[in-house]
């Protein structure tokens, strides 16, 4: 239930983010026992590089606290879509926070919005949609993979989000978004290999008063085909973009400063009477401290093209 609203203490059954370091985070379920491969009920122990955690011990603990591991410590954080996106079990490729933020902004999702999404995938984006539209809106999310749709449905239920979402197992490119959804959506999002096939269905699902559309595709050809269909159907404000986030690594660096001035004078000039003192005082090399930032060696260079469009009001759909 830990995704519904901000909470202060870990309850049994919560998903909890076990934060070890920037590069090491795990989503664990706060249950005292689990069933192992042999079908036996055993005590839930979670293994980390810093030792093991008896999961029972974190139930009742305040979120944000430090918890002891057998060889170190970690922090327990309440999950949210950002942390979940970094720790969720991947069933497909997922979209990350920078793109997702732009999608939510451009689709103008806010509480009360009705959003149609295809495909559900691993549910990374769905969690963001749900945070943005609850408690008064609704998400309709479609996937053509039956097991994935089922897993997502279960997951939303476990996360306390079940009341705001309907998960469909359906091939929307061929079958559309069901006739019940005709004219109900404020926004439609597509992440499909052939978005152009689903655009006419998106057109039908959007409200008569108009709405916003987004398609995410890694390849420009998909965007081109998609834009073609959008234009034919009367969408406007068509716009394609990509968002790339760069991290800055902040470090305090100590830099030795070398002196090259002494090379200008002849060496025997140093053989003056007071030269001994001079060389002694110069010996500890000058060191300066700088607060620096640099980019990592490897950055995401491409995620996908985001194509947005507006369906203006009162376009006849017959």
């Amino acid at each position, binding site marked *: 239930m830990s995704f519904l609203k901000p909470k202060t203490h870990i309850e049994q059954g919560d998903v909890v983010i076990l934060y070890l370091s920037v590069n090491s985070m795990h989503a664990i379920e706060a249950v005292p026992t689990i069933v192992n491969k042999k079908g036996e009920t055993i005590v839930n122990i979670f293994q980390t590089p810093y030792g093991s955690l008896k999961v029972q011990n974190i139930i009742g603990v305040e979120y944000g606290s430090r918890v002891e591991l057998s060889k170190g410590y970690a922090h327990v*954080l309440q999950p949210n879509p950002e942390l979940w996106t970094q720790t969720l079990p991947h069933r497909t490729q997922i979209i990350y926070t920078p793109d997702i933020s732009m999608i939510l902004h451009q689709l103008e999702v806010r509480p009360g919005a009705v959003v149609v999404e295809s495909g559900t995938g691993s549910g990374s984006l769905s969690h963001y949609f749900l945070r943005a539209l609850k408690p008064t809106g609704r998400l309709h999310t479609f996937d053509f993979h039956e097991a994935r749709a089922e897993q997502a449905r279960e997951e939303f239920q476990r996360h306390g989000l079940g009341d705001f979402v309907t998960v469909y197992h359906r091939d929307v490119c061929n079958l559309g978004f069901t006739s019940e959804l005709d004219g109900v959506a404020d926004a439609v999002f597509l992440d499909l290999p052939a978005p152009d096939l689903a655009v006419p269905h998106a057109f039908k699902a959007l409200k008569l008063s108009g709405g916003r559309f987004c398609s995410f595709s890694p390849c420009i050809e998909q965007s081109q085909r998609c834009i073609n269909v959008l234009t034919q159907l009367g969408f406007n404000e068509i716009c394609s973009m990509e968002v790339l986030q760069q991290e800055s690594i902040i470090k305090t660096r100590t830099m030795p400063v070398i002196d090259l001035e002494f090379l200008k004078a002849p060496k025997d000039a140093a053989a003056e009477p007071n030269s001994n003192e001079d060389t002694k005082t110069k010996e500890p090399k000058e060191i300066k401290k700088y607060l620096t930032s640099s980019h990592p060696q490897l950055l995401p260079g491409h995620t996908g093209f985001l194509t947005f469009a507006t369906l203006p009001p009162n376009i006849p759909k017959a």
Partner: protein
Amino acid sequence: MSRKSTIPSIQLGDYIVIQRQKYTKLQKFGSLDASATLGKEHLELKSLLDQPYGSTFKMCVKESKAGKRGAQRQHTLELVSENELRSIRDVLNISSSGADNRDIRDNGEAQALKSEDIEQLREACNESSKIIEKLVENSKTFHTRTEYSQDKYLLKKEKKYFEFVQIRQPTIRLMADIFHRQDAEKIMGIRVDTLSQIISYSGVSGFGSYLLYESGTNGLLPAAMLNSIGADTDATLVHMHPGNVPQKQALLALKLPLEQQQRCISVNLYSVLREFYQGDKVDATIPTAAEDDATQTDNNMTTEEQTDEVEPTTKKLKLDQSPNCKQFVYAKLPLRWQLENKRASALMHQKFDNLVVAAKEHPSNIVQALLPLVKPSRPIVIFSTCKELLQETYMELKASGKVTNLHVTSNWLRTYQILPNRTHPEVNMNGNSGYLLTGYTLS
């Protein structure tokens, strides 16, 4: 985005977005005499009343005055149906085009019409398509241009002579775009991608109690957060600002229901912190309180006019910079800002579910002052246009051990032209996204 299927209609007092092709502008429709200026064109807004948002209107020339830089035209607006808008290529029925530009020379003789002729044409015809038709007829080179080049020419001319405007309801998306285009500095250079990420990383939604400090974004940041909080939810926002009057233009433009507006509590940073730490003591010792009361009472009276201004303003009269004005004796009735301070202070005692700081000042002290008001395991987001300020804050927070998962990030945002055989990134891009420092509080 309207939640009802009926489209809301344009009312007096509304802020409206006027769109002419790609140009958009935020305008207050304050009275029936109100007019808007788009370049050299002046539009009378009278006829917009009660028409549904999203409607398209035709600009009809009413009179034309000679100005220093060409004619200034006064227009009335006439409602039109969407199908009057057709592709200019279809209207003009253009068929022939050249293969490349080998025969085109830039000698200034391509257009046979003189600029005076065009001005006259502009007054004679009400339709851009007719003007463009004449321009094309009198162009010696148009038909030898390539199809793509013709398209570009037509688009350019259409942009200049386009006679339709669309009236739209302001949303965060439209306003972020307008503010950033008109004067990015007035919203502290917060670009659309950065704004969207502030909303995501801060986790603001329909549940919880949120804390924002901003020193002047024309109301864009509080409006974006309140928009994410939503109507008919329980969440609240305490919006701290350094001046006497919060900038609220974007908040007013959203035309949110009253109950939602009231869940944004705008308070002065200094006076609310004084209230929080000294509480009743402040009321007892009137002389010390009077210094900021004096300036505040003055300014609260003028709130309405100031927030009604349409152009982004950066009004900033700092309280504690003029410490020696404590002569004002005020009535004993609690003023609105005092009540707001009390409400905010109560929420501060219960602590918040996030912290967002977008400061023109160095964020360090502000974050230090506000961080104790945030519950553990909650996101903090600090925006700055300069990385150096965030580097220092990063180090301080890291050393304090009160915040974890610290990251400093910035973005690239590229837009693309996607057309058959003409797909490429746009020639210009904005290189300044600003920087975000994000993290999670610990207990």
